[in-house]
């Protein structure tokens, strides 16, 4: 951080170190803070996964206890979703790029932006403090289903699950502050001439994402508050009468409904899936158009699809709950909405594929990652189909098939898109370019290992092996024939961390590279490249607010001198 900032001209000598780098209100610094924090948490979550994978592949070694396994599992999910991918996709990329892409000097509420990060970080820390408690961190899964989560732990306050809930309240508050800021920024601070249909697709996805965060998170906040009440004040929101745990009748509880929690949780958590995937699609759109040197095919239909996706994501939550004993009418409703929501995803994916046709494709590292997103997300999306119909879900629900499905969406899907974004925008943020050779090794290694990790899971899922098993299924007869797949997954995971070393070395090493890049090294059209220097000016972004004259992806326009026509370029200049 310090290294690249030192290239700036120091106009703001009056700002001290703390104001400038720690409690900064500059959206770029906050974006970098989010980025670094979330990359660290992605690594932490990944290490948790390695330990679990080791345990599952060789359960007879009893590397960790069942408690520790459940802790790692719950925290892996929570970290990856709430402290890793979302802060990176929205907090880092969104914060850094959205204002520059719309030609704004900063976010609409810079201090709110700072507050959002400084609520996020304590939330993460509070949650991780769970590991210091007597019983360890939360171990009821990232879903924290009641009654298990309410009963978990014996010390009620100083306990991993309580810490998880408190941390969750912090994280939710943080993303509420952030999403208000994003929406206002995108609506209010667009540069002159930048109409909605001239917004880069990335900005659109950020806008839809912000709405999802704004409207879907509060119900989880409610669920978190109610669960805290159940744990600390012995209320019975989610706790039915007549519970017997370890031969002890829990007569302090009566009259609650455990399914209520699931409804509140999934009302958030399904939109959350689109929070994870939409910004990734936005990043892919930027990189694919830039490296095919042609406009995005069906830009408008993609925008409408993204909006529709966001809207529908509020109406599908109970497809996570087919096995809770729901009636025909409710199940029919949610199956129908689930089938409907698959259509806009197909539209977006198809538009990406067709965008490639007729292009002049450059294969640089960001493009490789962006391209690999398409088939990987394709696998993730398609394997969602049998889970979306309640009948086929009977066999596959809560098996490894589900794990394979959503990991294909999020890991080689979203995370690859995020890597693409890092390689693509690194020169924008630092003024340096990441090494291509290391980047390509990182890419090819990662894609092979990713598939080695997740492809076997479909086999295990079809065999009916349940998720979250400490011994990887060794107890179960129906798992015996597929147990060896656990080992492939584990080797894949170890391979994966090996290839991430190339990324880590590249990420830090490139900071010290002597070569400064051009302001617009990718020859891109969007405002962050064509109207602002790399790295952008501190606190201002632009020397003066740019004026926008055209759509975001005007590449290879017939009759123009260059194969890219920046958004700031007037028609007369062409």
């Amino acid at each position, binding site marked *: 951080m310090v290294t690249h900032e030192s290239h700036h001209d120091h106009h703001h000598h009056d700002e001290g170190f703390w104001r400038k780098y720690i409690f900064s209100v500059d959206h770029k610094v906050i974006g970098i803070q989010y980025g670094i924090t979330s990359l660290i948490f992605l690594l932490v979550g990944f290490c948790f996964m390695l330990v679990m994978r080791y345990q599952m592949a060789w359960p007879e070694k*009893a590397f*960790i*206890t069942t408690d520790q396994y459940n802790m790692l599992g719950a925290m892996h999910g929570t970290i990856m979703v709430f402290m890793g991918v979302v802060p990176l996709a929205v907090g880092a990329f969104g914060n850094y790029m959205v204002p520059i892409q719309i030609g704004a000097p900063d976010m609409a509420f810079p201090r709110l932006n700072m507050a959002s990060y400084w609520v996020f970080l304590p939330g993460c820390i509070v949650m991780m403090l769970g*590991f*210091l*408690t*007597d019983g360890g961190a939360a171990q009821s899964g990232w879903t924290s289903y009641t009654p298990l989560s309410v009963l978990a732990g*014996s*010390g009620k306050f100083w306990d991993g699950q309580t810490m998880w809930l408190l941390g969750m309240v912090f994280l939710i508050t943080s993303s509420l502050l952030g999403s208000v800021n994003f929406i206002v920024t995108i609506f209010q601070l667009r540069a002159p001439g930048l109409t909605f249909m001239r917004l880069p697709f990335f900005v659109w996805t950020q806008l839809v994402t912000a709405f999802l965060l704004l409207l879907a998170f509060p119900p989880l906040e409610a669920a978190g508050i109610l669960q805290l009440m159940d744990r600390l004040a012995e209320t019975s929101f989610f706790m039915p009468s007549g519970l017997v745990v370890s031969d*002890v009748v829990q007569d302090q509880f009566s009259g609650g409904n455990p399914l209520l929690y699931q409804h509140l949780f999934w009302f958030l958590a399904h939109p959350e899936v689109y929070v994870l995937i939409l910004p990734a699609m936005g990043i892919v759109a930027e990189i694919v158009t830039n490296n095919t040197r042609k406009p995005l095919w069906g830009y408008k239909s993609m925008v409408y699809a993204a909006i529709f996706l966001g809207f529908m994501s509020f109406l599908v939550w109970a497809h996570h709950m087919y096995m809770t004993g729901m009636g025909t009418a409710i199940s029919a409703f949610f199956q129908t909405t689930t089938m409907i929501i698959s259509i806009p995803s197909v539209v977006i994916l198809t538009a990406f594929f067709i965008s490639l046709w007729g292009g002049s494709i450059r294969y640089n590292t960001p493009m490789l990652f962006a391209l690999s997103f398409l088939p990987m997300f394709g696998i993730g999306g398609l394997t969602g189909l049998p889970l979306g119909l309640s009948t086929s879900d009977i066999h596959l629900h809560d098996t490894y098939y589900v794990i394979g499905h959503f990991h294909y969406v999020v890991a080689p899907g979203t995370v690859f898109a995020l890597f693409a974004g890092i390689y693509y925008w690194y020169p924008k943020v630092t003024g340096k370019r990441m090494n291509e050779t290391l980047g390509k090794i990182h890419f090819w290694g990662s894609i092979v290992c990713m598939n080695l990790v997740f492809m076997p899971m479909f086999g295990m899922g079809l065999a009916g092996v349940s998720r979250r098993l400490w011994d990887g299924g060794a107890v179960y007869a129906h798992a015996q024939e597929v147990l060896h797949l656990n080992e492939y997954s584990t080797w894949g995971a170890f391979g994966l961390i090996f290839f991430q070393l190339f990324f880590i070395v590249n990420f830090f090493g490139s900071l010290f590279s002597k070569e400064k890049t051009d302001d617009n090294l990718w020859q891109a059209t969007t405002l962050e490249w064509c109207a602002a220097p790399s790295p952008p000016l501190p606190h201002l972004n632009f020397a003066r607010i740019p004026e926008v004259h055209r759509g975001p992806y005007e590449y290879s326009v017939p009759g123009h001198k260059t194969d890219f026509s920046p958004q700031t370029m007037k028609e007369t200049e062409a």
Partner: protein
Amino acid sequence: MHQLFRKINIDWSNPLMFLLVGLHLAGCGGDQPAPQRSTPPPATSSENTIAQKTTGTASISGTVSFIGEVPKLRTVDMGSVAECKEQHSAGLKSEALVLGDGNTIANVIVKIKSGLPSNAKYDPPTNPAELDQIGCIYTPHVLAVQVGQTVKFKNSDSVIHNVHTLSEKNPAFNKAVNKGGEMDRTYDQEETFFVKCDIHPWMKNYIGVVSHPFFSVTKLDGKFEIKNLPVGKYTVEVWHERLGEKTQEIEVSHGQSAELDFTLSKS
């Protein structure tokens, strides 16, 4: 507030585990051993004037036996847990009532309930009490320890167990113990509670925490002996998991070996 802080018991080995992944996991069983006090047991410190008041040379012994119709005992259903089943080829009988010849009762905690000097303080023994999980049962089935004495929970089985203590006055905990693992705990409140292995629901054990050293747990012969008692009048209590509690009063004088028998029956 006191309740709250008592529950704050940081397990430092846990975060360490995550910092040193792969380095010391194999040996990571549980907590640091509690600091052990090195004062000699009460018996050897009889010259001490304070100790003279709180310990003595009297003793109480006797037998606890069962009267009435002996209830049948169930064979434990271990489901399909092969590793546990194969250790009990003849089947495992419920340990709810273990009787010796002449219907003497094992697993009864006998302790002085009241009558000791009110300000008496007794240092806990330095040797830990062991609670092993072997053959998918807890051994011993009933354990009595003194306040402050270390209880060592062990797992000598090849399968993973978990120790779920359902204490109310002392902090309860629920932790898995891998094969060969062990962890130490101390208790600072007098109470009798049970311990379960949730993974194997039939596994149940009782721990009696007593604030002084004057207690005993009967073996199969139903016999108990409480030694080194100072002169005084005492209420002696017997406790059994299913048969409940019963008390008797007795007065002992210097050097006396008093006899006291108890009978318990189905209520």
